[in-house]
């Protein structure tokens, strides 16, 4: 309904809305809620285990509870990081080509980080 109020000129200028803005907003808020619990849970455990040594950390990451916490943390964190940095890129990078390049690099980097950490954790859990 709301789009009916816009003039045809407004619609074609800058291609109008992509209708994906709210998705990103909700995604950022949903992952923020998850991280509200996961950040303290992961970070406190991580620091305590790292203080006890590498073997203790590996044992924790490979345990059912540790693996689940770490997998959930890196999943939610990578998702949240990707949306957050995408907003910063969209704010500051003016050139269209460079902007898309940065957004792609951001996505690829974050997904690679998520895949690598998840693989490590699963490796510890099942083969460690």
């Amino acid at each position, binding site marked *: 309904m709301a789009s009916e109020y816009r003039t045809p000129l407004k619609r074609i200028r800058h291609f109008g809305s992509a209708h994906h803005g709210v998705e990103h907003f909700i995604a950022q*808020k949903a992952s*923020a*809620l998850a*991280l*509200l619990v996961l*950040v*303290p849970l992961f*970070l406190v455990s*991580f*620091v305590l285990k*790292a*203080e006890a*040594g*590498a073997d203790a*950390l*590996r044992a924790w*990451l490979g345990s059912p509870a540790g693996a689940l916490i*770490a997998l959930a943390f*890196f999943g939610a*964190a*990578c998702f949240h*990081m990707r949306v*957050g*940095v995408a907003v*910063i890129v969209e704010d500051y990078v*003016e050139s269209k080509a460079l902007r898309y390049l940065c957004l792609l690099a951001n996505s690829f980097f974050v997904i690679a*980080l998520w895949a*690598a*950490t998840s*693989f*490590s*954790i699963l*490796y*510890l859990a099942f083969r*460690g």
Partner: protein
Amino acid sequence: MTPDWYRGRPMSPHLQVWRWHWTMAASIGHRVTGVGNFLGVTLIGIWIVALTLGGAQAVPTGALGVLFWLVLYLFAVSITYHLLNGVRHLVWDSGRGFDPDQASAVSATIFGVSAIIAVALLVAGLLVAGVF
């Protein structure tokens, strides 16, 4: 030269024009710590990969150990602030807390609480490290 995005439309004044105030500092702080958290999660992630799949065997000690715990500490401080300020953003999303005085007070409080937690973490870390 006029930037491409301007195209004769009104522009809002930028950083150097504004008088500093709490909510502005909170907004900038949120973005800066967000980038800091990105780097922190990346470093922790890479280190976990190195620790489990080879490349690193142990938690660093000596000079490298100091650097390791310093980076981890800075990450903890950064993520503490981002998390507390994030709660404020979630409250804002519900449409509450927009009264200017209240918003400033909450922003200033979050800076204060983060600073207290940062000092507490530092003292706890140094106690565990046996510095005192």
